[in-house]
């Protein structure tokens, strides 16, 4: 093996690209798929909590504040903080939060407890929603994985992101003509087609790939590269606080409670001033801190973003209603901090509207497609060689089988995640963990699947099988939604709930893509022009079938030679 490392620079980079990529491909693919889904975490959660009532388009925030305040006064009269989130932007329900502080006399400890409720806009009563992990769990898994301690997971994902970064840089080095081959895709040429597809999916979103990988590393900078900070500031929290004070400045405008009781104004008192500044119905959240104290204040956030900066917020005195503070993202940070903030903003994409969010999502899927085509390319290339030799190594067979289970299997597992959400009873107590267990159990089955059927089906048929399963599961999701909830396409399309309708429609589109892929595998095999195509999930190759033909030809030529 070490021989292959020697040789010229490009050769060794090629070797590095291939092997660094293959070793971590499955986990990176998992990170890309779940991370892409994470761009729609709120939307997925909305779909997974069908109890949330549909909201009609006319949003009057004054009414909502009245409803929420009434409810808060009933359930949390003594809470020290009240918060209201409005259904605006990417929030889909009116939700209230409060912090109960109870002084337990026995041991003198102060117990803080956060509670939250979703409110029905028509009745003002709370809605009980199923306790699903929703899209947030998918999003969380792309950096914290699952079943292992999160700090360990941060190290693992960072290390794999490092592999990804090296894969990207070495990929740029070995790609000879990035611009000349920018639009190149040669269809129906097995290895060449897979390589072209890999190139297209890597090069077109290259800025995205580099940004997402590098910023992903930066997100855990203080976990994975702590030595720089420690060497300069010394170990221990006290020392690092000196650094945090300089770099991560908090808004210091919020006063602590003074302990003097005072009567607070209601939220509606300040609304006139807010509407004058921002216009009507533009508030993302409103809350009051230190309730009942003379230092109580009301804070509001503006909905929507203007550029990549932080959201502006307003702080009012909750005793006399005077404006205390206007925040425009705090003080101006230094260039280094600005760059760091920018990278993290770009990674999370919180500033993006619906179109930009879709662009993020598609770019993320293209990243997953890049990894998937890389894995397939590895196998296809070696399969062609192996068929010429008439002998396939164990590694090749392993990778071929793993490819099926990891690439399509994960997509099936995510569909199962949504299915489990609908099929478990609504008040099932351990719903959150069992939804995720369902995902991983299904994924393991998909990994094992090629092994059980290895003697009966060719690799190609295995691809076809799993694509068919995926097509069925995704395609029937809207039907399942119709049977189990009221938020089905019939209602959502006509009431204009584009988020819920969009979820179902997207599932149908995915299903069509998988079905097309399965169709290509089962019905077009043996064609001289093998049909390969660019949609990511439809990755499949008919190398087995074609190579069988090649084998026959080889054997015949050998006979002729005799």
């Amino acid at each position, binding site marked *: 093996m070490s021989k292959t490392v020697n040789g010229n620079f490009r050769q060794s980079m090629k070797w590095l690209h291939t092997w660094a990529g293959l070793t971590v491909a499955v986990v990176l693919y998992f990170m890309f798929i779940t991370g892409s889904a994470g761009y729609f975490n709120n939307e997925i959660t909305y779909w997974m909590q069908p109890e949330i009532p549909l909201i009609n388009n006319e949003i009057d925030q004054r009414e909502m504040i009245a409803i929420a305040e009434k409810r808060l006064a009933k359930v949390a009269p003594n809470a020290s903080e009240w918060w209201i989130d409005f259904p605006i932007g990417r929030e889909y329900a009116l939700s209230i939060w409060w912090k109960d502080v109870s002084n337990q006399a026995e041991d003198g400890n102060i117990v803080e407890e956060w509670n939250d409720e979703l409110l029905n806009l028509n009745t003002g009563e709370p809605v009980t929603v199923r306790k699903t992990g929703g899209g947030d769990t998918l999003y969380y898994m792309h950096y914290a994985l699952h079943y292992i301690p999160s700090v360990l997971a941060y190290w693992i994902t960072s290390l794999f992101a490092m592999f990804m970064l090296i894969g990207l840089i070495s990929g740029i080095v070995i790609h000879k003509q990035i611009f000349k081959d*920018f639009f190149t895709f040669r269809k129906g040429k097995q290895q060449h087609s897979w390589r072209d597809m890999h190139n297209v999916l890597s090069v077109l979103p290259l800025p995205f790939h580099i940004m997402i990988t590098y910023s992903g590393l930066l997100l855990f900078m203080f976990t994975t590269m702590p030595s720089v900070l420690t060497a300069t500031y010394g170990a221990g929290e006290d020392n690092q606080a000196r650094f945090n004070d300089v770099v991560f400045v908090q808004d210091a405008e919020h006063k602590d409670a003074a302990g003097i009781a005072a009567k607070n104004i209601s939220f509606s008192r300040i609304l006139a001033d807010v509407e004058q500044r921002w216009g009507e119905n533009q508030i993302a959240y409103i809350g009051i801190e230190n309730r009942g104290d003379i230092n109580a204040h009301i804070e509001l956030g503006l909905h929507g973003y203007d550029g990549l900066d932080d959201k502006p917020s307003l702080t009012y005195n909750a005793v006399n209603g005077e404006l205390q503070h206007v925040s425009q993202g705090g003080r101006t940070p230094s260039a280094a901090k600005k760059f760091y903030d920018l990278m993290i903003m770009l990674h999370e994409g919180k500033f993006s509207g619906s*179109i930009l969010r879709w662009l993020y999502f*598609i770019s993320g899927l293209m990243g997953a497609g890049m990894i998937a085509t890389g894995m397939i390319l590895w196998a296809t290339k070696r399969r062609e060689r192996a068929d010429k030799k008439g002998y396939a190594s164990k590694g090749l067979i392993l990778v071929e089988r793993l490819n099926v289970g990891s690439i399509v299997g994960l997509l099936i597992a995510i569909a199962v995640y949504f299915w489990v959400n609908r099929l478990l009873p609504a008040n099932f107590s351990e719903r959150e963990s069992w939804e995720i267990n369902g995902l991983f159990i299904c994924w393991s089955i998909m990994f094992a699947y090629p092994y059980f059927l290895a003697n009966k089906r060719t690799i190609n048929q295995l691809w076809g099988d799993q694509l068919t399963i995926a097509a069925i599961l995704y395609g029937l999701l809207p039907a399942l939604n119709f049977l189990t909830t009221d938020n089905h396409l019939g209602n959502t399309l006509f009431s204009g709930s584009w988020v819920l309708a969009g979820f179902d429609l997207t599932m149908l589109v995915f299903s069509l893509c998988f079905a097309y892929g399965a169709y290509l595998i089962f019905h077009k095999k043996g064609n001289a022009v093998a049909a390969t195509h*660019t949609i990511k999930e439809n990755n499949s190759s008919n190398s087995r079938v074609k190579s069988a033909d090649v084998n026959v030809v080889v054997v015949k030529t050998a006979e002729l030679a005799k």
Partner: protein
Amino acid sequence: MMMLFALFFMFVGLIVFSLSMKRNFKQCYPQIKRPSLRLLFIFRLIGYLSLSISIYLCVLMQGLGLGLVIWFGAVTIASLLQVIFLTYRPQWTISSSLITLLCIAWLTGINV
């Protein structure tokens, strides 16, 4: 409206840019056996020019940061479409891009 112009220039830029590559040129115009180098050079020049114009418009409309993010995201999808069309329906490349442009125009009217 400005954003539409930006997208328009992006599509035009990508089409012309792909035409400046010999392989893609032959895909679109198989009847022309040997495109002259000068023609390809002019195509490349126009391609770069209109892509730069579209970046400039994006940045002008959305600010430096967001403008660049939107531009890179859009150019990724646009060139992916371009690749698909060049491979499967080369004769449609130009008209399809115009149709896509119209769709995007309609969408941008709602939200960016």
